[in-house]
């Protein structure tokens, strides 16, 4: 078919060297009765015919819609340089850097990634990436179980419900217990969270900003957790960390999140990357790969996979996690993104998100039948209470090319009229005002 390189002449030469008469003979170890009963796929295509099909699918993927939705994934700018550099073939066609001498590119980049994500979250150590936000949160929960030797987790229900569902599955498999604490409107119910922490608690899991967009200081909660020998696990949103107090400053023990907003396109769900950072004392409990600095015989600085004894390929079922392939290339994108924006740039980006969102809040709260449900501060998301079921409004506006927000109802019982609205730096004043007009018309 032209995809494999060997020519008929070469195949004949190779068969002669092997000493068999046909390629089919090489499969003779497989009993006839085990042979494929079907392999009913269409004939192949050229790349040009393929791309016609792919472009048709892409044309029906909602990319023209104006997004005021988040749900943990955000429509942020991706500088051109991110694509160009992460698209270097030497990065994307390399394997896991098991042979460090010929993989210093990947290794040094991931070391830089670890450094950057630590600085962003205000923590001391990081691994080289996990899969996504939800699985990172689940790994954090398991890590807390390992560290504390306890079996119970307290979870704030204002943590992203998609992430909570992933955590639930992981904990359930290990017969660990979790207690979910209902929020107080759009804010974490701090009293109830505090009260739920006992000497049996491995960790309390919160998110900042939370699913409703509210920003909270969890410093006191961290203290309370530590008093009981429990850990504070904070789910975080990297772009928000350009502005808001870091989990490190609050005293968090483990910080996780989805790195999508750091230079990874939405791509209908992935690939992104999960990140996890912690303090030095817990480094041996981190799941996944870690890159460490060292030297060669001549004293030249270099980077290697380190603490591999934690990992599945050495420790097998006693490993800290089963993770093998992670999301290196997406983490590299995250690093390039953080470096391209830099210290001031990320702060500016966060401030711009905040300003746009505050502007949207002010415009929407002027509409009859709309109130802002968050009592306190928000970052770039907030929750609106509408005069009508949010689902109806969203469905209507979607036909006008605008995704107005994420209705809370499917995830929070009884909150039919509430809608989480996301306003990133990409939303223009005009788009915000257009949404306001459509909202007004839909109520």
């Amino acid at each position, binding site marked *: 078919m032209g995809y494999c390189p060997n020519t008929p002449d070469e195949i004949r030469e190779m068969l002669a060297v092997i000493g068999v008469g046909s390629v089919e003979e090489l499969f003779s170890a497989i009993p006839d009765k085990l042979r494929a009963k079907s392999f009913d796929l269409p004939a192949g295509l050229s790349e040009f015919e393929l791309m016609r099909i792919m472009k048709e699918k892409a044309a029906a993927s909602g990319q023209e819609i104006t997004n005021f939705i988040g749900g943990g994934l955000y429509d942020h700018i991706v500088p051109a340089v991110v694509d160009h550099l992460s698209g270097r073939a030497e990065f994307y066609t390399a394997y896991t850097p098991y042979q460090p001498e010929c993989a210093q590119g990947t290794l040094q980049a991931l070391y830089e990634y670890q450094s950057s994500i630590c600085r962003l979250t205000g923590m001391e150590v990081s691994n080289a990436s996990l*899969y996504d936000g939800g699985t990172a949160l689940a790994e954090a929960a398991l890590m807390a179980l390992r560290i504390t030797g306890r079996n119970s987790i307290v979870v704030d229900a204002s943590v992203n419900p998609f992430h909570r569902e992933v955590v639930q599955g992981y904990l359930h498999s290990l017969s660990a217990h979790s207690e979910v604490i209902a929020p107080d409107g759009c804010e974490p119910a701090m009293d109830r969270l505090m009260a739920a922490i006992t000497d049996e608690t491995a960790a309390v899991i919160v998110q900042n900003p939370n699913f409703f967009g509210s920003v909270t200081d969890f410093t006191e909660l961290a203290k309370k957790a530590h008093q009981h020998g429990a850990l504070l696990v904070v789910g975080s949103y990297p772009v928000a960390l350009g502005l808001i107090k870091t989990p490190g400053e609050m005293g968090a023990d483990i910080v996780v999140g989805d790195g999508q907003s750091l230079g990874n396109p939405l791509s209908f769900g992935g690939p992104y990357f999960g990140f996890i950072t912690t303090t030095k004392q817990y480094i041996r409990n981190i799941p996944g790969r870690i890159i460490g600095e060292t030297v060669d015989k001549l004293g030249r600085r270099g980077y290697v996979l380190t603490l591999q004894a934690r990992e599945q390929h050495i420790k097998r079922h006693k490993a800290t996690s089963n993770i093998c392939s992670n999301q290196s290339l997406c983490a590299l994108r995250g690093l390039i993104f953080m470096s391209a924006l830099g210290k001031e740039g990320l702060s500016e980006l966060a401030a711009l998100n905040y300003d746009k969102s505050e502007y949207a809040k002010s415009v929407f709260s002027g509409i009859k039948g709309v109130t802002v449900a968050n009592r306190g501060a928000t970052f770039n998301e907030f929750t609106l209470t509408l005069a009508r079921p949010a689902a109806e409004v969203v469905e209507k506006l979607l036909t006008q090319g605008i995704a107005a927000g994420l209705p809370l109802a499917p995830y929070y019982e009884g909150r039919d009229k509430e809608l989480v609205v996301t306003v990133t730096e990409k939303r223009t004043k005009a788009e915000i005002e257009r949404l306001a007009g459509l909202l007004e018309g839909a109520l």
Partner: protein
Amino acid sequence: MKLIYELSVSGRSGVRIPVSDVPKAAPLPQSLRRAEPAALPEVAELDLVRHFTGLSRRNYSVDTNFYPLGSCTMKYNAKVMENAGSLFADSHPVLALLPGGPEKVQGPLSLIHGLEQQLAEITGMDEVTTQPLAGAHGEMTGIMVIAAYHKARGQNRRYVIVPDSSHGTNPASAAMAGYEIVTIPTAPYGDMDLDAFRAAMNDQVAAVMMTCPNTLGIFNPHIAEICEIAHQAGALVYYDGANLNAILGKVRPGDVGFDVIHVNLHKTFGTPHGGGGPGSGPVGVKSHLIPYLPTPRVVKGADGTFGVEAHPEGIGRVSDFFGNFAIMARAFAYITMLGREGLIEVSEQAVLNANYMMARLKEEYELPFDITCMHECVFSASRQLKDGVHAIDIAKYLIDRGFHPPTVYFPLNVKEAIMIEPTETESKQTMDSFIAVMLEAAEVARTRPEELHDAPVTTPVGRLDETRAARALQVCCEL
């Protein structure tokens, strides 16, 4: 090379942020703000470009040369797959969850459904979920599905059986799914000892995890029997799809008797490895396991349109949305482009190349299991060891001669293992030039073994002090 942080100059900036078109808002309360900006690098775009271009040039990759890493399937993936994967950049997955949303994203939903159907046909399974984000994640998902199945039958089985030649992820994934692990040794025929397996099997075993062909590149002739034994005891059989590249169109795990499979899209189906990821690990199951698959499920309606549903009895969500979609798009493109005959050719040529490699190298390298192999072959450096040369020394010599080394020291049940997987995308010429260097290495091992201990010398750094790395634990560039 310097670290990006060592290039940083206070006040320098890279990419410009858009100018605001809205009023400056009242500031967030001080107590909610970070004390100072994150100390990220301060570099110009050009600094970035030279830094990462320079780093990229310190990587070996499939695009620079042959990467015969056994168990990793480092094939070449046509560039058009990269183009196909990038077409959906601005498509937000949450659209699919909005009321009226699915009709706006029929393209990606149809692609997911189409890929699931392609994989079901390829593996002989009844339904596939594309949510798992990597192979190991697929394994864990598959075992969780198995656990849910047993639980629904009121059974609380405790064990998962794995052969000692399995990938480390198998026992690790089963452990994360809550099982205790029973490891079965390898018999002289090159795969799981059948007597030991029979002895270990009982009604407390939830699943047996098999890799077939296994990590020695051997297709287990007893595989159907193993499935039967397990099924008789009420256990299910899990197929680790890491080596699926060997059997496309030849064998379908579903036909053989396997209940669950995961597939590594980033190995077999046209998506590159990215220096360690992203991958994608769809899971296929037989009909009796369909109810336990994770949520969300992409379904095709009677009118031909696609929608999103939950699996009400299923294990819930294993990843945030629809899996690593852009990786799935590459895989869909790959399967669609190669088609039936193309995929069969993949396995035929992969197996031909591996056997050619084996035939050419076995004069100089010990071959513990000298039978027809599938997609990869495993040698031992035991002959070279007599001259004090280890597998790692041969590996590092190859680097100096322009090749990536094979996998060494895996599988664990072969001493000084050297595991070679050429894949179907390499030509005879490329293999011949690699073989020449391997034979040369054997010659050097015999005649000047000490030379091999210093390799590599052509790389930016020589062999690195791993002990020091693990002791110093410098994993983050200090402020």
